[in-house]
């Protein structure tokens, strides 16, 4: 670690020094545990949104119902994009373990691209729904749908911003302890979003079409 510091800018060096102090108490595992507890509290947000959606799913108020709106092949493509991005983040984690910076960066860029594809498809889907008069103001069902799926989409967007920041930090700071710890947290976050999406495609899209 200390080998990389002298080559850095003074500001970055000062930052690293403060993190070095941090490391005296913590090897990063406590931070990751804390981040895991945050993710579990995020789970509870999604649980209440899923419960709300479950209660309101049938309240279409005479407007379009789930089976009139949802296009399953489109959702399957979104699902594939997010699942592949979760896998490519796994490949980045392996390269991180092996200490190969360029390979980590490569897989993070691939993950970013698939995540961006997912968000682009979701934004397209939302704008289409609003255009045909099935926006969040149409019925309780659609309000709950946009809130739940939109909250997931916002999380993925935040993940994309974080990915971009980490790709930058990878080159600015190298694979030091702080960058490794942040990537470990981001990895949990990104995989977690794919877990939430499993519940979304099952209980929102697939259930909506069969019931």
């Amino acid at each position, binding site marked *: 670690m200390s080998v990389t510091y002298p080559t850095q800018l003074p500001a970055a060096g000062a930052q690293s020094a403060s993190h070095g102090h941090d490391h005296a108490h913590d090897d990063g595992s406590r931070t990751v545990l804390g981040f895991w507890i945050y993710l579990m509290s995020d789970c509870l947000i999604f649980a209440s949104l899923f419960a709300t959606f479950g209660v309101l799913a049938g309240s279409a108020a005479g407007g379009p119902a789930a089976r009139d709106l949802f296009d399953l092949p489109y959702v399957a493509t979104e699902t594939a994009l997010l699942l592949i991005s979760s896998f490519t983040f796994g490949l980045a984690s392996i390269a991180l373990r092996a200490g190969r910076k360029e390979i980590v960066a490569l897989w993070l860029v691939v993950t970013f691209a698939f995540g961006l594809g997912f968000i682009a498809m979701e934004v397209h889907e939302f704008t289409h729904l609003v255009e045909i008069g099935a926006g969040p103001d149409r019925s309780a069902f659609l309000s709950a749908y946009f809130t739940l799926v939109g909250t997931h989409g916002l999380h993925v967007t935040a993940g994309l911003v974080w990915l971009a920041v980490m790709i930058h930090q990878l080159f600015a700071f190298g694979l030091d302890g702080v960058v490794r710890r942040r990537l470990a947290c981001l990895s949990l976050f990104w995989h977690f979003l794919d*877990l939430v999406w499993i519940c979304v495609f099952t209980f929102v899209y697939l259930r909506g079409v069969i019931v």
Partner: protein
Amino acid sequence: MSSSPVLAEARHASGGLLRSYVGGFLLSLLLTALSFGLVMAGRVPPGLTFGLITLLAVVQLLVQLVFFLHLGTAPDQRHNTVIFILTALLITTVVTGSLWVMHNANVNMMPMSPALENRSAGG
């Protein structure tokens, strides 16, 4: 902090990690395809289809928790696993409780006469 034994250990572990991610990815693809296939084929009655896709979702959640998030009973993972199990308990309580209570509220609501219902819908 001597780096060479750490790196050697990392290389040894990364083979297992790769198997874990590839296995998790293939299983997730299969389970997702089964869920979508079941619904899109539409040959199974709706009630049974819903039961099956719920089961497939739970299996896929477990697959990703173990293969991607590495939850397990290993000493360094025990905290995460216990916290997750408690959260799962809370989620189950919140979701089933809400659905149950709201279902009951709907069923036991005082029946409204059509005239009243129209008036309240209009107002």
